Each structure stands twice: as C-alpha cells, then as structure tokens.
C-alpha cells in the first residue's frame, strides 16, 4: 500500500482537487504570479481556512503594502475574520531585520516566531526581496532550505509568495516541494485567470492550466474538466433500458424511448421546437427521476412562462423539488466553471433527466476552442456513468439550407443519438419536422415526421407527406417539379 502523506485542505473550492487532496503538511510551496495575479488573496484564503479549522498562521511580509491596507482589502472578502488578527493569525514584517541583519537573522526570527505562535502555516510574502538581499544563488538556496527545514521540523507548511517567474532551474524552484503559478491574462477583450501547478513533489496534481476566479467569497478554482474527469468518477454500468421522452409519438420512433444514460443531440434552427422537446422531457421529473434544466438562453421565470404557454407542466416538479432550473447567462462564462457547475448540480440531487439548452453556451465560453472535443468527451462520459439521460440542444445557424453544422468535428463519436428538427417549406406552408438520424446500438424509425403543438406541448403528428429535400428545409412533393 502506497504512503499517503497528511494533507492540509486549502479551503479554496476546486484547488484541493487540483492538488490531489490539498497541500502536503510540512511541505513548502512557491506561489508565483505577476502583481495582480491574486497571490495575496490566494494565500490569505488558505490562511483563514486554517484559522477556521483551529490552526495558527504566521504571515510574514517584507516590503509590501501596510498590513492595515491589506486588511482593508481583505475585509471585502467573506473568508476574512478580523477577530482572529493577533490571536490565531499574526501578520508581522521582518524587512528591518532583513535590511539590517541579513537572511540568517530572518531565518532565526521566523524560527522563533513559528515556535512562539505554534503556527502550522507560514506565509512568506516577499521572496523576491529575500533574493535581492542574498549575495549569491547559494545564499538564496540556503535561506529557503533553512526556512523549509525549520518549518518542516515542526510540521509547518510554507507558502513563499513571489512576483517573479521562478523557472525550473532557479535555485528557489529546486528547493521547494511545489510551485503554483497564477496568471491573469487578457484573451481578446476579456480577462481570464488561470492557475498551473508547475511542480508537485510526491503528489500527482492535475497538470496544465485550470481556470479560477476571485469573487466576494475569495478564490474558486475550476479544475480543467478533461483533466479532473479523464475517466468517469464512477463505473459506467451501462444498462439497456429506455426512458420516456415525454413527447407524444417520439418514443415509438426510438423503439421505446431514449436509451437510458445516453446523450441525445437535438439540433435545428431557431424556433423549430428544440426547447419544447426538452421541456416535455423535463416535465416527467419525479422524486425517482430528478431533473435539471441547465440553460443559457432563458432565465427560470421566462422558461416557466414558456412552459405554461405550451401547456407543459413544470410547476409541479419545480414545487416538489424534482426539477431545478440553472440559468447561465451567455455573457462572459468560464468553460470549466460551467462544466463543474453542471456536474455538481447533477451530483447534488442525483439528477437522472438533464436538458442542456444549448451546447453553444459551452462553445462560446471556450477561450481555447481546440479543447472542446476533450471537454465534451469528459462531460458526456461523466453524465453517462452517473446514469443521467441527457438531451442537449444545438442551434443551426441557418433556418434553411443544405448545410448542417453540428458542434465539434468528432461530435458523432461523443453523442449517442441524433435528432434533427427542421422548418420545412412544402406546398407554400411551413411545417415543423423531426427526424431521428442515429440511436446508438438500437433500431429506430428513420422517417421525417411532422410535429404539432397540442394541448400539452409539442407532439409527433404523422409522417411528412412524401417529399424530397426535407432535410434542407426546402422540400418538394414527390412528382412535383423541384422548387428552386
């Protein structure tokens, strides 16, 4: 059995996942990033988490803003507890000692103060200043090694903060157990914060970049979905059951219903009935089949109003708690925040019916669209393994036309079932049609059917009269001259 070192929980949502369980007790880390990257809030969030769990924290500064100025800034954050200052968390400056007596004196002072305070977390803000005071790389290495060993001897975890980029062959990098780098970058017109664990001795942290944000609650990290869910978190026990779609007539086209734990893409242009199809699916929510609407276009009030107008009962499952509506306005989203939020919402209520309206919301949030295939692969694998039957909508750009563009270049391999909805012009009338194009591992009815809105929402009516070109949206009856 492999040894699992004791961990110190950071208290930063998502970060313990990236760190494979948290910081290692007694280990030392460099937290680096340009000014404004978030190092101070990051380290203070961890510090006050420790304080809240009954630990003592020593926060040592060199040449930085005054402590009072720092407290003013931290006061805007939920984790900050002013009553703990001077008791369970102490902020001290050692710049004068560094300036007048050098690095060795600082090491000694820190040693004494850790022991005096009984601190189990030391935050040292100002590694750059310490580096400048040293006469050589050896001085810096010695300083870090001495602080490290003094702290480790008493089980104190150390965070060294620095605004310089510590590279792999720098003396600091070689001495510490871990290096966490914070970035605040401009991509296009928006700012995106990302975190990377560049070194993690004795710990299998999640490699690569992970998005994070700083809000009133402090720091929240969103582990990159395809890294955190490289494999589904639970075994995928595929069972060949079916789940009612909620749309009258559709189950017959699917040989009994939607395959359980499958992902169905319902795609089509605006106004063809995708959301209505999804609302029918959600209306069957129950205590045994909790449902979730994870959408980007309409807030809960508007969605409920739409359902009422269509005659679809969402009020009953909403009132009972069987249905939850999570709205993500399509403004500046973070892709991994969306993915993690969705998975957490599914887990929290054991969701079995999920409507994602629509996948385009994830695509718009992607700062790096090239990772979308991997992202959706991780997401759909996790949903399947969790026993969630999912309908995801995708809006085609053109109302009519022969070109159908679905999300991603390998979408068919990620999605189990494809259902196409179209407006079809036929005989000077516009008809809504639905066609099942693919059902993984099952037979289905590959016939274009008309849809109608009845007393209880969208329903499958009858097969479209014989026509050609229905898939393009501009059709002609069989035997008629083609309309161009």
């Amino acid at each position, binding site marked *: 059995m492999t040894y699992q070192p004791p961990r110190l929980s950071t208290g930063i949502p998502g970060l313990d996942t990236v760190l494979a369980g948290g910081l290692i007790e007694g280990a030392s880390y460099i937290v680096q990033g340009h000014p404004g990257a978030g190092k101070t809030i990051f380290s203070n969030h961890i510090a006050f988490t420790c304080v809240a769990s009954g630990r003592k924290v020593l926060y*040592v*500064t060199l040449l930085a803003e*005054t*402590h*009072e100025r720092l*407290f003013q800034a931290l006061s805007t954050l939920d984790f900050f507890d*002013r009553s703990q*200052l*001077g008791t369970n968390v*102490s*902020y*001290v*400056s*050692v*710049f*004068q*000692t560094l*300036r*007048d007596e050098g690095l060795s004196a600082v090491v000694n*002072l820190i040693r*004494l*103060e850790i022991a*005096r305070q009984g601190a189990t977390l030391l935050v040292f803000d100002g590694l750059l200043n310490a580096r400048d005071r040293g006469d050589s790389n050896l001085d810096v290495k010695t300083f870090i090694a001495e602080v490290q060993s003094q702290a480790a001897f008493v089980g104190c975890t150390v965070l060294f903060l620095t605004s310089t980029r510590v590279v792999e062959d720098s003396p600091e990098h070689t001495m510490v157990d871990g290096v966490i780098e914070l970035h605040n970058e401009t991509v296009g017109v928006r700012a995106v914060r990302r975190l990377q664990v560049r070194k993690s001795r004795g710990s299998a942290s999640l490699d690569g970049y992970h998005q994070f944000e700083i809000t009133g609650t402090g720091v929240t990290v969103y582990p990159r979905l395809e890294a955190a869910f490289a494999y589904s978190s639970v075994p995928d026990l595929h069972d060949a059951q079916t789940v009612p779609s909620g749309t009258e007539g559709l189950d017959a086209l699917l040989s009994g219903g939607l395959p359980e734990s499958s992902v169905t893409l319902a795609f089509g242009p605006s106004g063809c009935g995708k959301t209505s199809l999804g609302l029918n699916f959600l209306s069957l929510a129950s205590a045994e089949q909790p449902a979730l609407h994870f959408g980007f276009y309409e807030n809960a009030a508007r969605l409920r109003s739409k359902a009422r107008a269509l005659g679809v009962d969402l009020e009953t499952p909403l009132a009972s708690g069987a249905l939850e509506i999570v709205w993500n306005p399509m403004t500046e989203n973070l892709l991994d925040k969306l993915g993690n939020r969705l998975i957490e919402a599914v887990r929290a209520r054991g969701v079995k019916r999920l409507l994602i309206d629509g996948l385009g919301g994830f695509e718009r949030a992607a700062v790096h669209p090239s990772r979308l295939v991997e992202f959706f692969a991780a997401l759909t694998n996790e949903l399947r393994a969790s026993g969630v039957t999912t309908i995801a909508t995708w809006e085609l750009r053109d109302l009519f036309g022969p070109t159908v563009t679905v999300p991603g270049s390998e979408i068919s391999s990620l999605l189990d079932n494809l259902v196409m909805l179209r407006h079809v012009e036929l005989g000077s009338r516009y008809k809504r049609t639905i066609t099942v194009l693919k059902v993984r591992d099952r037979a289905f009815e590959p016939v274009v059917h008309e849809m109608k809105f009845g007393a209880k929402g969208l329903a499958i009516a009858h097969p479209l009269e014989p026509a050609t070109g229905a898939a393009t949206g501009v059709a002609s009856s069989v035997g008629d001259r083609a309309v161009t």
Partner: protein
Amino acid sequence: MPLVVIAEDEFLLADMLAMMLEDAGYEVATAAHGKAALALVRQRRPQLVITDFMMPLMTGLELAQTMRADDSLATIPIILVSGAQGSVGRSHPDIFDKVLDKPYSEATLIRTVNALVSGDET
C-alpha cells in the same frame, strides 16, 4: 529632549511616526519587534512608548504587560497604535494609557503624546 521609543515592525510606519515626532521636538528610537523594544526601554528609559500590536518575538500587549510588571518601567506611559486590535487595547486600561486607532491624524498623535509626556493625560 524627551525620548519616545517606537515599537513597530513595519518600517514605513515606524519611519513616518519618527518623522512626525522629531518634527514635534522629540528624540525617537525605534525597534522592529517587541523584544528589541523592551531592551531599548530598559537601556534608554524613555518618557513614552508607542507600540504596534502585532510584532514578531513579542507583541505590543506582551511588551506593555512586561513593562507594567517591572517597577522600574511601570510608570512609563504607553500608547497602542492599532488597526485591528484597538478593542484589545481598550479592554486593558491598566496597561495602555491611550489607544490610537489607525488611521489617525498627525495632530491627534502629537496632541496625545504631548499630553502623556507632560502628565496632563491620566
């Protein structure tokens, strides 16, 4: 010239306090932590001590308590200047003669120091 000892680990604040007091006609000696401040107080017997709360090796409260426990130092007036721990200082009126909450004006500081040094503030 009356001597004031400043116990303050943040050197920018210590320098600022020193400048204000020197402009007001005081001699100033500074210490970067409570232990050094205690040594300075024992050595120089100042007319007043101004101390921060959070400092390495010995806090402002520990410094003041140690001074009050020493008959030779017990009568030296002590001002606590603090942002977060002002309430702690006010809950010990037997230890701190005055608590100044950050931020404070130079006029308030000098007025308070003058009163304590001259014995008008009890």
